[in-house]
């Protein structure tokens, strides 16, 4: 379980997160919606310990991770698929996956090999391209690779920052079906999405972020999808 409490993150004097509190329950898909500039990516990077929040707390299964490092957050079981995928462009697909398992590579090479083969079963599109340089993959393939790489650390909580960004509708549907599969396998998912329609179809719970704060939250079904989208992107007063 991931519990974020009163998280404040600032770039210089500008607060991008102004006290965010949210919970991602074990085994659920939690979606974070919101317009551009709401602080979604800042929130992801803060939880993953890439950014240092000014105050607040992030507990993973009861353990505080704020103030530690990104490698430490990963070892606590929190992995992030970053916005824009950020694959290692000059490495092969296989090397990208190895890098994803970096911490286990020293002690557990045999199991890492098995996990890479398993990743190719889950992401068959990558299998034929295992030796290909990642920078030459299509956007969809890079996104698959980014998810597969994050899964190589065997996280309990997988955060994804806009996995559908810039992808064709068919590829987006594939990504969402993979997210659902991963969740069925017991991985807790935190999904940041602009595509509210798709996200609300798979979410157990959603939070709407606006100007660095949680504007409201709920479960899909409690509130009409149109209403959520209205509030997320067109202002809080429903027409």
């Amino acid at each position: 379980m991931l519990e974020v409490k009163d998280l404040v993150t600032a770039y210089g004097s500008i607060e991008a997160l102004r006290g965010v509190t949210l919970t991602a329950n074990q085994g659920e898909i939690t979606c974070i919606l919101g317009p551009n500039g709401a602080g979604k990516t800042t929130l992801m990077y803060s939880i993953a310990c890439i950014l240092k929040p000014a105050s607040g707390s992030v507990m993973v299964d009861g353990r505080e991770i704020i103030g530690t490092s990104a490698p430490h957050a990963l070892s606590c079981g929190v992995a992030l698929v970053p916005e824009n995928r950020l694959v290692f462009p000059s490495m092969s697909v296989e090397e990208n996956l190895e890098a994803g398992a970096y911490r286990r590579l020293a002690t557990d090479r045999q199991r890492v090999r098995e996990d890479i083969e398993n990743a190719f079963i889950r992401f068959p599109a990558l299998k034929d391209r295992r030796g290909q340089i990642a920078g030459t993959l299509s956007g969809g393939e890079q996104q698959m690779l980014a998810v597969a790489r994050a899964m190589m650390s065997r996280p309990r909580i997988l955060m994804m920052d806009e996995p559908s960004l810039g992808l064709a509708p068919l590829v987006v549907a594939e990504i969402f079906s993979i997210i659902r599969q991963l969740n069925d396998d017991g991985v807790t998912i935190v999904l940041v999405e602009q595509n509210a329609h798709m996200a609300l179809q798979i979410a157990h719970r959603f939070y709407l972020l606006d100007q660095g704060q949680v504007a409201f939250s709920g479960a899909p079904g409690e509130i009409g999808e149109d209403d959520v989208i209205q509030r997320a992107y067109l202002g809080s007063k429903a027409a």
Partner: protein
Amino acid sequence: MAIDFIDVVQAIIDGLLFGSTYALIGLGFTLIFGAMHKLNLAYAASAIAGAYVGLAVILMSGLPIVLTFVLGPVAGGFIGFGVYITCFRYMPATNMLAPLMASIGALFFIDEIIIHATAGSPLAFPAVMDDVFLEVGEYGFRGDLIFVLVTSLIAMLVLLYVLFGTRLGLATRAVSQQVVAAELCGIASHRTNATTFAITGVLGGLAGCMAAAAVGVISPLLTVPITVKGLIVTVIGGLGSIPGAIVAGFAVGGFENLFLLLFGVNQRDIYVFLLLFVFLVFRPNGLFGKAINRD
């Protein structure tokens, strides 16, 4: 003075052999640039300082003189790590100028320390295999230069193995290609960069010893010329390109010696710089460099 064909070829051969030290220095610049996208201008000074420390330990301890070529690289590794801590580790990541200026400062700081420690006078540096002379037809291969070449080639092979065959190399390449993603994969980027500096420092210490051994003396006057040659090699090879640094190192060594033969020692470097300008104008990304995309 008539210069015949044999002299030209012989000069190029000697230059190519000595060029392996330039290749090592160029590799150091290029690896650090690849890792951090920043230039470490103190690199060649650390290389010479490493060779000095190696020599000093040998002279004071009376250990076998060949060990200079082991102790020099070790010292170079420590100095490289020191330069990382003082000039790069705590500099803001977005400020390109601060570490550059700091490393220029470190270059002259190291230079001054050497001058004060040696009263500015050159010291004799041991050569290995300098009594060997290989003759192939009309051409000769100096034994000490063969030693320089072979040692440099071994160092390059070890480096390539570390980079492409080990977990540490995977981390180094990950950090250099996408530092945020590397952190997200559990790779501590600061520690990886520190290791990169130490490894390139070892390489530099070796190059410093090789250069000094080939010349026969070591002097603080070597630091700035080797810095400049190393940078020229890096630019001609393509910033961040490993094969580029190796090829350009040999090429600059060969051309330099050819210019020395044709134009004499006073004008040699003018033509080396001309070579640099030719590249900057017609091939600014170097032999192997790709256009640098920033995301």
